[in-house]
């Protein structure tokens, strides 16, 4: 099993959620984050003073998937999250040893 973690633009969350739904993914966890990368932050002027804002709001999406689904899910996320402009985000996968569903105690792929 793998954990797919995606850092996305907040405005794309709905699209990604819908796209995942469409391919049968019906579980995910979302949280708030901020970050910067190549986009580097942008310059703002406020009350006559100029400064850079280097942490911009992002959404972190986590999806546990069975090994066989990793590639297709990655593809769906990248496709639905992309706007082509800087700051679109990253997606990465981490190996997972064990997953348990709390309610039932089921383990492994059935627990996802």
């Amino acid at each position, binding site marked *: 099993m793998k954990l797919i973690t995606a850092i996305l633009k907040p*405005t794309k969350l709905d699209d990604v959620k819908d796209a995942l739904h469409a391919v049968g993914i019906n579980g995910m966890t979302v949280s708030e984050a901020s970050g910067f990368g190549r986009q580097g932050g942008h310059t*703002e002027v406020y009350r*006559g*003073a*100029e*400064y850079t*804002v280097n942490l911009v709001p992002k959404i972190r999406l986590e999806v546990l998937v069975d090994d066989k689904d990793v590639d297709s899910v990655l593809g769906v996320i990248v496709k639905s999250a992309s706007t082509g402009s800087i700051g679109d985000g990253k997606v990465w996968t981490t190996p997972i040893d064990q997953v348990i569903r709390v309610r039932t105690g089921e383990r492994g792929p059935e627990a996802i």
Partner: protein
Amino acid sequence: MEQAVINSGDTAWMLMSAGLVTLMIPGLVLFYGGMVRVKSVLNMMMMSFGALAIVFVLWIAYGFSLVFGDSVNGSGLIGDVTQFAFLKGLDNSEAVIGTIPAAVFVGFQGMFAAITVALISGAIADRAKFGAWLVFAGIWATIVYFPVAHWVFAFDDFVAKTGGWIANDLGALDFAGGTAVHINAGAAGLALALVLGKRVGFGKMPMRPHNLPLVMLGAGLLWFGWFGFNAGSAIASNGTAGLALLNTIGATAAAVLAWLLVEKMRDGHATSLGAASGVVAGLVAITPACAAVDASGALIIGAVSGALCALSVGLKFKFGFDDSLDVVAVHLVGGIVGTILIGFVGVDVGLFNGGGTEQLVKQAIGAGAVLAYSFVLSYVIAKLVDLTIGFRISVEQELAGIDLAIHAERGYEFSDNNQGNFLASSRGAQE
């Protein structure tokens, strides 16, 4: 304007009423600001502050004169723009209107204009260019509010010799602005919602209020300020003001109960947004009627308005216009309820209260005239603004949030982590 003597008690109440009506702007700003999503709260608030600023300057320049100057040709349609231009003769400590200093009357009535314009902004939350809104506000005040206020508020021989047709010729009762303020703003809100179109996600995402405690506080401040609006419309500290005040409490209490009851029955729970909306629905409906009904009549008007407005908030989904903060359901519907019910429960004049249908017909004509005039003109003005400078922000700006896109600010910074770093020390200092 007669050179009468100032009554210090009347003046005290009207000074206070002018203050109270001014406080309705912060009240509205919270009521509306708390109701939008977190990314639009500042823009929502700015629309009211901006409207107040621009309308009041126009008020001094020519607005008061258009409303309270002698009716041009005695037509009852509009006042003489030159008579009090820049408040000629009124902005000193000697001038008197009725039994109070002229300056107080000017200030009091000027805030009515400002508030009416501010009310409209609830229909176009999250998506209007700020500059375009200010332009609209100035034009709308000039060619919609000032004439309509002349019709309704300019009584013959009060400020000038001749006044407006609704007040003097038709004889429809509108004590504090059910027609001139609420029906007027509600119809304009509908027109604007149609011209600007729906927000991205309207009807798909619920777009719930981001800060309900602010909405509750806003409703509370509006209520408090409304005492000045309604009881102040007596332009004196007397029994009429007293009755208006009492009815302003009674109707509002009844409207809250009615709104919550509708919600409980329809949705299964009574909400705080419902309580706050019920407050405003009651206040709106009692506005025209507060001096024309007794306490029982006020309870009836409040209850009917609370229930009908609560049932009306769904109309926008059914008919597909994005009146974002329910200006139509609360101000248009509530204003009509109050104006028409005078014809039923008004003391002496109401159908259920010893009168015939005469007053009812007058009320309907007054309401209908203002509604039609306001809707048509508002639609035209908004369309022109849209076609020339553009009224709506881009979809990207709307998605990112209008506060950040247009005002370069976020409502709240509850974390210190996304603060940036200064580049230059300051551009302001270089000027």
